[in-house]
């Protein structure tokens, strides 16, 4: 027979390491948000229940908490999967790349889209382990292509760099408009 069996098997999803940590995280967040319902939403006297500004947050958070509770229960009662904290560390390691991304966005309005994008692409490619000139050049080339496509050609709404203000007049206007 083939690897496909019943319709049931198509829809199956299975637990992975770290599942219980995520289940606890979701449950606690749900309970916290639900506990804030009175503070964070208003109740309008005289308005119908379904038209209350509190109605949909209350429905969604109540059900979210219930589902999160059952999900946690399911995880807690299931067999423990090895590698829970190794997985959590991997999630945490993504924060470094989130930092790269936010730093990139923070710097662009100062140093300009062109320069920052090239430095970001080459720097991150180096950081993730590429050392060959070919790969670093490919990263820089891709960055240049991205700038030319989105900023120069498609004129996508991206910031210009404060640094460009210090350039000579002719070059300044070109950089401000196209890069």
């Amino acid at each position: 027979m083939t690897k496909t069996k019943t319709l049931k098997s198509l829809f199956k999803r299975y637990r992975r390491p770290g599942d219980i940590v995520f289940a606890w995280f979701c449950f606690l967040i749900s309970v916290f948000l639900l506990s804030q319902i009175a503070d964070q939403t208003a109740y309008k006297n005289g308005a119908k229940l379904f038209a209350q500004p509190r109605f949909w947050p209350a429905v969604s958070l109540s059900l979210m908490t219930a589902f999160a509770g059952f999900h946690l229960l399911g995880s807690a009662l299931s067999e423990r999967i090895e590698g829970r904290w190794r997985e959590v560390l991997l999630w945490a390691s993504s924060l470094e790349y989130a930092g790269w991304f936010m730093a990139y966005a923070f710097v662009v309005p100062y140093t300009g889209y062109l320069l920052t994008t090239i430095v970001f692409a080459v720097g991150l490619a180096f950081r993730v382990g590429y050392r060959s000139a070919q790969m670093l050049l490919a990263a820089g080339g891709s960055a240049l292509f991205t700038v030319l496509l989105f900023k120069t050609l498609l004129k996508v709404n991206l910031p210009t760099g404060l640094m460009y203000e210090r350039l000579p007049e002719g070059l300044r206007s070109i950089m401000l408009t196209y890069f």
Partner: protein
Amino acid sequence: MENILAGLEMLARWDVFAALLVGSIGGVIIGAIPGVGPAVAIAIMLPATFGLEPMVGLTMLLGIYGSSMYGGAIPAVLINTPGTAVNALTSYDGYPMTENGEAHRAVSLAYSASFWGGIFGIGCLILLSPVLAIVAPMFGSREIFLAALLGIILVVLAHRGQIMAAGMLGMFGIFLQTIGLDAVTYTQRYTFDQTFLSSGVNLIVVVLGLFAISQAFFLLTAPDSSPDAKPVSGKLGAGFKELLKHKRVATVASAFGVVLGMIPGTGEFTAQFMSYTYAQKTSKDPDSFGKGSPEGLIASEAANNAVPAAAMIPLLALGIPGEALTAMMLSVFYVHNVIPGPQLFQNNIDLVYGLYFALIALNVIVLVFLLFSTNLLTKIIRIPTRFLGVMILMLSFVGVYSLRNSLTDVIISAVFGVLGLMLKRLNLPIVPIILGMVLGGIMETKLRSALPRLNSPFDMIDRPISFIIFVLILLVIGLHIRTLVKEFKAHQPDEDHDLHDTQSR
């Protein structure tokens, strides 16, 4: 006839055609690279298309959506790694064919079956249009509310084995769209006195975080790899002759794609699976399935390519998206002030026809492109995964920042990126969050606008269509409970698999 001509005229514009060309070819390339997928590409391109005219922006995204599965078949067949998650079953028979030295036959069959499915889906969409134009105006606020509710229930129930997680994430999506200033009562909801939350959580920022940025994090935190696909030799057009020998399988599979494509939350996976099972059960050689059966390959590819056109039916007629990609398309419609729903067929029928023709054209463009460039694509597949991660992160910046030039959006999208990574690593679904946001917003608006005409809750279902949808809701829940009871009694042993790779869902 006048409207059909107007639709054709729309497509004949150079900018629309160029957008379709870029979208279609770009979609094939993106689909062929394992680890990218159409959701990532559409999420990144969304804000970039806002500055374009409605038809130009829409055809570009439609091109990516409709063509990615063609490209996804290449790595599924050649290296046993589906380019997009919905090509998973293609690898079951495609890869064994490659191992048997029939790579060109497998790729060629995949292309022709995809084309068959794609054109079949569009044919159904066009044939159904007059019916839609009659039925869609019968949908008032309460019908659309109930249809959106049915959509949410189906999306949750479709994630068998993880229903609690899917329900939790779906409700999280509904909650997310309530954050900010309530537009009717002008009261703050879950803003925690933070001004940046007053305008709410932007759907596109969440989409970019959950699909694109999370995928970059996923690739960057995993070991680097570079798939090795061997070039294909032989006539790629030969598959059409072989396909004609299996017309029945291709047509039934496409029909599964159309029917299931219209139902929210099911889509390509279920269509592919059901058509594969059908093909196997009716085959003269069922034992060859999984070992290189052409029928299995045809069933899988024809079914998943019939879905995009069918998925446009609830989107265009009712404004209700059935999965993440059509949810993204919906935001493009809104940005251009084209509101999908019953009025679209009355006010913008030329745009609807234009989109139909764009769908036909993209299938032809993609097929011609693939017949000449498959070997080029086998080289693109080899891009190292971490390098792809760098590129996705760089491109995500364009998507997030171009929206409102807001650093806050960047931070929010990065937070959702980390959440998306956790979900992908845990093999949990992302789609319920997005559909929760979109369908939750629809439910809240439509329930409010229906309220003045309701004296009791039963008035909600006192019209024929609303009653039918209500019965469907009860039926879906009832059938689910029945299946659960049956499974519990049968004590079926569990079997683990990664078929539901969440990367593209």
